[in-house]
């Protein structure tokens, strides 16, 4: 299939969607959390306002940092939007949909994580280094869990093409097999860890010594911080969107017609909204696990992935 104009429009739409839906999802999650705790909470739009405020501030960077520090937020945002453009979020027929592999998308996202990690190390401060080392530890354990989960899902369908993986759920009823459910649970735990949510990391903490992700970005300020926040939130909705479409594929546009795209956009927004609310509800009731329990949690996710592979092979 050659790149089409429709596919291009769809990809552009998805790209813009993650940039807008990211901050809104953050706002929604904070709002849900506040209400569950009995507080009023800030408006859902607050993260967008924060971005506007940050982007107008003066740019300050640590004196001894290099281009690595400056480039990291840009790479982070770029990796998120590139991954979003080619993923089945709004439609199954985005640009290059037939060629895009699940593993490729994850590794594009990983580029953002690694650049942020390098940016943190580039500052040479104790906190950023501490955050980077913890993030590397978590990352090293998230990747195997993610890969095994993908392998498990791929075995059932016979391909790791992302659009096919999502599409198979729309057209057939093979969706609810044990292999797929186990793989999705494993995938979800890995997403929580990768995006720095509870119980792995507390995005709301001000305790610098407990931070993982927040410690890494402690030196970013102003427009750089705006980019980091934007990139992180875009990544969050992209991963939640992939999860939502893999778990509940219905409503995703099959083609690139205007009506189909609008429908797909609504569908993915609602689904991601629901997943985000579910994550918030979960976060309110849980707590942050001890740092050295994170490997146990992620080993559990990995194990679920392995079980999923076994059941996929056994049930074939």
């Amino acid at each position: 299939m050659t790149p089409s104009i429709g596919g291009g429009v769809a990809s552009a739409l998805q790209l813009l969607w993650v940039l807008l839906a990211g901050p809104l999802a953050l706002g929604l999650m904070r709002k849900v959390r506040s209400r569950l705790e009995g507080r009023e909470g800030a408006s859902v739009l607050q993260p967008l306002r924060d971005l506007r405020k940050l982007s107008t501030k003066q740019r300050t960077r640590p004196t001894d940092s290099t281009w690595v520090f400056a480039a990291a937020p840009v790479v982070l945002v770029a990796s998120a939007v590139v991954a979003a453009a080619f993923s089945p979020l709004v439609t199954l027929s985005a640009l290059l949909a037939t060629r895009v592999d699940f593993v490729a998308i994850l590794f594009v996202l990983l580029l953002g994580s690694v650049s942020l990690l390098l940016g943190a190390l580039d500052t040479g401060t104790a906190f950023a280094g501490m955050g980077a080392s913890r993030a590397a530890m978590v990352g090293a354990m998230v990747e195997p869990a993610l890969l095994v989960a993908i392998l498990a899902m791929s075995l059932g369908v016979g391909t790791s093409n992302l659009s096919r993986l999502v599409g198979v759920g729309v057209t057939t009823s093979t969706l609810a097999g044990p292999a797929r459910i186990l793989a999705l649970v494993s995938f979800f735990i890995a997403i929580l860890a990768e995006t720095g949510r509870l119980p792995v990391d507390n995005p709301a903490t001000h305790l610098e010594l407990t931070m993982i992700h927040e410690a890494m970005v402690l030196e970013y300020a102003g427009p750089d911080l705006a980019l980091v926040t934007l990139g992180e939130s875009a990544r969050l909705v992209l991963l939640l969107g992939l999860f939502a479409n893999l778990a509940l594929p219905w409503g995703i546009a099959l083609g690139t017609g205007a009506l189909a795209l609008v429908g797909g956009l609504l569908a993915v927004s609602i689904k991601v909204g629901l997943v985000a609310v579910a994550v918030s509800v979960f976060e309110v009731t849980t707590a942050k696990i001890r740092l050295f329990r994170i490997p146990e949690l992620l080993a559990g996710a990995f194990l679920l992935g392995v079980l999923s592979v076994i059941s996929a092979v056994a049930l074939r």
Partner: protein
Amino acid sequence: MNLEDVLSQRPARAHLDLEPRDLLDAARGLFEAGFHLGSVTACEDDDDLRVVYLFVDGPPDQRVEVHVRLDARNPEVPSLAAVSFPAGRFEREMADLFGVVALGHPQPRPLVTHQHWPAGWHPMRREAARAPFDLDAAPFPFNPVEGEGVYEIPVGPVHAGIIEPGHFRFWVVGETIIKMKARLWFTHKGVEKLFEGRDVGEALPLAERISGDSAIGHSLAFVLAAEDALGVAPSAHAMRERAILLELERLYNHVADLGALCNDTAFSLAQARAMTLRETLLRLNDRVTGHRLLRGALGLATTSLRDLPRRDELASIAERVNDVVALANANSIVMDRFRGTGVLARADAIDVGVLGVVARASGIARDARDAHPFVTTRAYSIVTEETGDVLARFRVREREIAVSLAMIDELLTGGEMVTLPRSARGTGTGIVEGWRGAITHRVEFDASERLTRVKVVDPSFVTWPALAVALANTIVPDFPLVNKSFNLSYAGNDL
């Protein structure tokens, strides 16, 4: 009275004048007899310096003052650091603020003063003029820990959250803390000097502001000391109201700590509930005293309350505390974070000389409400836990809230006033179990009833060093939780 009489007769109040050379033996005798060091105070008289060691024990309430006169030009005392760790801390403080040298001290380095303080300038001395501060005049480095893979993390004094300033230096391998040093006294403001020349009425607002969360603890310790020195006796009614205020202060702080401990494990639901309960308690404080932090209710021999807590209010508070605790208990991750974290062994706690919640969580049954009571109630019982971890400190607070509520309930109609014996005319001591632990004030007045010297000891001063001990084998991300479970005051320590 001499030392032998004191040790055999155990009078409620005693005063000993000793030569410096007899100090160490006397201190040994008193420590062996079960006394603890309440405070060490240097006082400047017209022609010489005097160091006052306050030894306390109880129950029954006993206080022994040991006075040692020194040559003001060359003030030297033998160090007690070898027999008492807190004594070593007091001596370092005294060396910085008064220039009194503790001979044979194992750590003869500044404690209060930072590197930019002029050498040889002792701000509490009468002749101390305003000294020009030369920033970074002398470096004051940490003893580094060296070795393969040792990593140094400096934290503070400015923190990401809105808390008081303190600098913490960690040496870690991986995430395990090898050593931690706390450098405090960033908020040293010369509170003790500010007391000088004030009368009781002028001094009370200052005492209330020594540590904002212990307005009653410090002002009550001060006013008890002042009443002791001036020979004034409050009514039993006033004393009972003071006991109510002290427990109200414990309530709102302990409730806040229960929530904050949960919050440090990111369990913010319990924190949100605890904070709304704290707000209820602050409004109750406001109704009772006209101030949310209980300021302005105490006076010399008097207490002025606008209202009293109602019994049904106390019951509903108890219920809401139970809700918060039940939330925490039901969360296995929170319990896992608390259990076995930041253990302060009983032996270490005794060696460091810790006070209050921290001591009782390590199995030490010390409480000024028990040892130095000014009101007794049937509802009071001392609360101890054995494990010395974060969970034990959580449990001590949880159970003390229940005791406090029962005490307030009883104090509304009952409670027995204890008639406190007098110290020597013009001097007085006040010991009160604030919510952190025992707060000790020692005051001296001149003939016109103006203060010449106030020594303030917040329990934080003696308890801070134990934090580093409790961190052995703890991982860096658990430090905030351990620190919160101690919840020591910076303002009360730095003075």
